[in-house]
């Protein structure tokens, strides 16, 4: 596996070297050492497998009928095995046996043990079905229980937050290359975008791309792997032409509709499986252009589920029209109708004489305010804005057009105007399973100051933005935007234009931050008004429905 990285075309090598120059410098000897260690680990694992199977056979021979009290230990290893198996990453990670390098032996051992245990459970289950005797399994379970209880549960980190790990980058490069349709040469693969500029050390585990080097420039023409609608979408994302959670999801779904329309099933293939495989390189490409948002992730999960649920007898035309219909329904239900429902609940909370503070440009919050104004509620709005995106200006434009009286301030003045404010309405990018709200950077600051002034904070969020992730700080998983955006020219002088020359200077352009649930008083969703701590209940109810 490691060899293929060296024997490919010259483009591949250049890119890997560029990638490596950002992180550690791996010499040839180190590469060889890594390769050897991986082989060793494979061998060790095979040895352990043999030993384990020998052990289990011995135990079965000496098995006696055990008390039902030993049943719980059987349950325990069974439960620990699936949890020790790596957590699902947002982008599918290839199932390589020994991913960890030499400096993390404990992690790989645990993973190997977990995989071995999982296989044993499968074997055991099949044998149980054949024999139907429970007593024999119990002593096996008992002996396995102590080692599993001592083993810490190790989860694999998603790769988009391991940018400073060169092996992960190598794996990503190989995966992108593998996702091209077989039969095409290396020149039509999905390119790997390289990081730009000095990264602040606290965020060095995240990607930082430059807007001036869009991924599409590295694509060759004709780019037969990626559908032109997707290429257009990727460019729009990376240049910031399509921005905002809802807008990005809707654009994504429309592009997928176009892909489905232009799709023809190749001979000897099933639509349900082939189409999903076709979508994978598109999703990797879009992820390279700009990291996927939680709402986009949920939309993609939904589409993949719908595609794989298509019965095989279904004719292609029928299947395609069904899929297009599904996508339309999804957009209508989860975005358009949800916005109407949320507006209905929100209007109850807006009373005459209110002074409402909004931050940035959230399509949902703007919709709510316009609806409330139509229903003749008397209120005025204070729009808070921040650099470098200055999205508040767009919100201001939309509200003033409707005739709502607005005030515009920058975020540095928030503690000055808050005594005037009666309510704060915020939009959200995603709502995490522990009740934290992930939104545009600056949101948690506004929530904090509002709490200090005892002003109620209301977050408006559709349920399709709820995600199962848990995050307590803004460092672990975030997005770094182009650092050059922070450079501004005033009175003919551009102060930061030579920031690359200064070694100790780094520019940080964060996109998201997380707000803890103590600062949020109410979350308005299409299911109703819930406190921030009830998000896991909604997720549970949704999963039951599906």
């Amino acid at each position, binding site marked *: 596996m490691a060899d293929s990285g060296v024997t490919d075309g010259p483009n591949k090598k250049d890119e890997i070297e560029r990638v490596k120059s950002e992180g550690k410098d791996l010499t040839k000897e180190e590469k060889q050492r890594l390769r050897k260690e991986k082989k060793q680990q494979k061998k060790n694992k095979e040895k352990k497998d043999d030993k384990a199977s020998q052990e289990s056979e011995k135990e079965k021979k000496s098995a006696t009928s055990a008390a039902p009290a030993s049943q719980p230990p059987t349950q325990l290893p069974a439960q620990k095995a699936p949890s020790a198996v790596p957590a699902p990453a947002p982008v599918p990670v290839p199932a390589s046996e020994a991913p960890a390098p030499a400096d993390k032996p404990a992690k790989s051992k645990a993973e190997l043990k977990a995989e071995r245990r999982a296989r044993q459970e499968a074997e055991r289950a099949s044998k149980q079905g054949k024999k139907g005797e429970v007593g024999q399994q119990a002593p096996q379970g008992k002996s396995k229980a102590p080692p599993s209880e001592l083993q810490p549960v190790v989860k694999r980190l998603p790769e988009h937050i391991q940018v400073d790990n060169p092996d992960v980058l190598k794996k990503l490069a190989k995966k992108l290359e593998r996702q091209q349709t077989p039969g095409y040469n290396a020149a039509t693969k999905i390119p790997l975008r390289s990081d730009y500029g000095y990264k602040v050390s606290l965020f060095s585990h995240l990607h930082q791309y430059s807007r001036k080097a869009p991924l599409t420039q590295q694509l060759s023409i004709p780019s037969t792997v990626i559908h032109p609608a997707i290429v257009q979408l990727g460019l729009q994302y990376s240049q910031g032409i399509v921005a905002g959670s809802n807008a990005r999801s809707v654009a994504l779904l429309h592009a997928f509709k176009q892909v489905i329309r232009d799709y023809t099933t190749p001979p000897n293939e099933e639509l349900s499986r082939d189409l999903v495989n076709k979508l994978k390189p598109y999703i990797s490409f879009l992820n390279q252009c700009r990291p996927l948002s939680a709402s986009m992730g949920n939309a993609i999960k939904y589409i993949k589920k719908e595609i794989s649920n298509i019965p095989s007898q279904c004719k292609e035309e029928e299947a395609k029209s069904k899929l297009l219909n599904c996508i339309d329904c999804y957009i209508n239900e989860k975005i358009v109708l949800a916005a109407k429902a949320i507006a209905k609940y929100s209007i109850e909370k807006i*009373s005459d004489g209110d002074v409402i503070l909004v931050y940035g440009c959230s399509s949902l919050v703007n919709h709510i305010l316009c609806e409330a104004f139509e229903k003749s509620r008397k209120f005025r709005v204070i729009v808070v804005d921040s650099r470098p995106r200055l999205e508040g200006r767009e919100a201001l434009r939309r509200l003033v057009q409707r005739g709502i009286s607005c005030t515009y301030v920058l975020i540095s003045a928030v503690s000055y105007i808050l005594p005037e404010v009666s*309510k704060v309405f915020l939009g959200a990018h995603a709502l995490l399973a522990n009740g934290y709200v992930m939104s545009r950077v600056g949101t948690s600051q506004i929530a904090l100051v509002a709490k200090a002034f005892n002003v109620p904070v209301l977050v408006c969020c559709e349920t399709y933005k709820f995600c199962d992730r848990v995050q307590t700080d803004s460092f672990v998983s975030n997005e770094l935007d182009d650092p050059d955006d922070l450079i501004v020219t005033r009175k003919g002088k551009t102060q930061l234009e030579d920031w690359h020359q200064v070694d100790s200077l780094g520019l940080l352009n964060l996109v998201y931050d997380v707000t803890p649930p103590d600062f949020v008083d109410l979350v308005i969703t299409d299911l109703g008004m*819930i406190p921030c701590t009830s998000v896991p209940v909604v997720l549970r109810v949704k999963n039951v429905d599906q």
Partner: protein
Amino acid sequence: MVLPEDELVEYFRAQMRKDPDMASAVAAIRTLLEFLKRDKGETILGLRENLTWATDCLTGVDSSVAVSSGGELFLRFISLTSLEHQDLSRCKKVMEERGELFLEKISMSRTKVAKLCHTFIKDGAKILTHSYSRVVLRVLEKAAAEKKRFSVYVTESQPDSAGRQMAEALRKLNVPVTVVLDAAVGYVLEKVDLVIVGAEGVVESGGIINKIGTYQMAVCSKAHNKPFYVVAESFKFVRLYPLNQQDVPDKFKYKADTLKTVQNLSEEHPIIDYTPPSLITLLFTDLGVLTPSAVSDELIKLYL
């Protein structure tokens, strides 16, 4: 309309008079059950509309939150069963049975709450409570029956001096009780070990609506780091979500007669206030001992 409005109201008042210890919501539900039995509607939808109308009438008599929440929950409970029978009378019978079941459950609720809560009262404890609450009384009765020695401070709770009624009832149980002024809550709190109050309504956020003065007591107990416990039956859970004191609807803030007669409400004193969930330690309900964030989960289960 077989049971016209005044008859309905009369029945309700009669129920209240018959058993003064019964919660007003229970009386309302009894009335609604009677209404259901006598209703001669032709369709289920019509039946529902009539019941909703009846609940509104009763809210017009007694504007407490519990009456409206109890009525809504009653309606939900009886229709939460398969009403697929062809015959309307059979459906009605099913609904009536469910109604009786509901009534039985909620009449047991106070006992359940008392059973859960009395263990939190330790021997030698000093308790502070607010105004007259029958649930709190039941809890203290149970604790006294378990041979625990404790003393109680009750606030006078103006404008109706309901606190004195509470003190009388406690003296009958041989519990040492002191009546304090509403303004003396901060003064008394350093001597007190825990605070127990009842609730007229429990809202979606986990906060409570109760007699005016409760919010003050909650803020003071937070400042003194004393636990603030709320005892409430589950039929008091209501689908409101106030953000602050102003956000509570007017129809709950004032007595029903005041709402009908007075022109300018801003000159009237509200009789209830809202206590946010951040000030409440635990809620004791017949569904169990809940933290304020768990109330929303229970409400989602009840209503969704």
